């Protein structure tokens, strides 16, 4: 059982097609791991009671991929036992209940994968150049993650 052939890998993809939790979880599964933790961000039908029709995502794609790669590198420093990390983010239109992001992390034991997946989504929201436009019935608004350090407006 030579663990060396199961080399830790990062799977990063920004795409406009529908995301698949099956696909993302399969990417990180490893015979050396007993745990896979996942996070899925889905489109909600309301924002503070206001009806949301759908979301639209836009990205500075090349930089976004680089920033996500940095997150994966940080994860491996903080949790060395993590095996595979997958981050899929959807661009363009994302209908209600569909996934805009799916993150999966595998590790031998569950603690690392649970902590790492939370770190990934928190850091992604703070540092990856992706923008979410929330479309309502009669208007829209560019959202701002509270994690984003230069978002100082009240909006």
């Amino acid at each position, binding site marked *: 059982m030579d663990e060396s052939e199961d080399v830790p890998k990062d799977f990063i993809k920004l795409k406009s097609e529908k995301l698949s939790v099956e696909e993302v979880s399969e990417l990180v599964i490893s015979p050396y791991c007993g745990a896979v933790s996942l996070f899925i961000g889905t489109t909600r039908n309301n924002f503070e009671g206001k009806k949301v029709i759908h979301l639209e995502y*836009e990205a*500075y794609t090349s930089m976004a991929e680089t920033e996500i790669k940095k997150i994966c590198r940080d994860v491996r420093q903080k949790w060395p036992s993590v095996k595979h990390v997958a981050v899929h983010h959807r661009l363009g239109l994302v209908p209600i209940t569909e996934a805009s992001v799916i993150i999966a992390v595998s590790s031998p034991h569950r603690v690392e994968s649970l902590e790492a997946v939370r770190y990934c989504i928190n850091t992604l929201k703070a540092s990856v150049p992706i923008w979410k436009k929330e479309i309502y019935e009669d208007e829209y608004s*560019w959202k701002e993650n509270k994690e984003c350090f230069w978002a100082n407006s009240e909006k």
Partner: protein
Amino acid sequence: MLVLYFARSAELAGLRSETVSVPRQITSLQLWEEIVKIHPRLAVIRDQVVFAVQQEYVLLGDQLLVLHPGDEVAIIPPISGG
């Protein structure tokens, strides 16, 4: 150099990218002021944007930038990924 506009900044500037010539050495704040000269409507998001210079975040301030032809500078409104 190439200037990229995203999200709200693209709407205010009315375009997604353009080539802009600026002095080789300029502070990030001066660079912002140059760009606002071209697209005055951008002024409204002054205290909410940062630059990405060669894909590295740079705050608007007195940081001196050394820009080379073909360098890429992006206007980065507050992000909302995830």
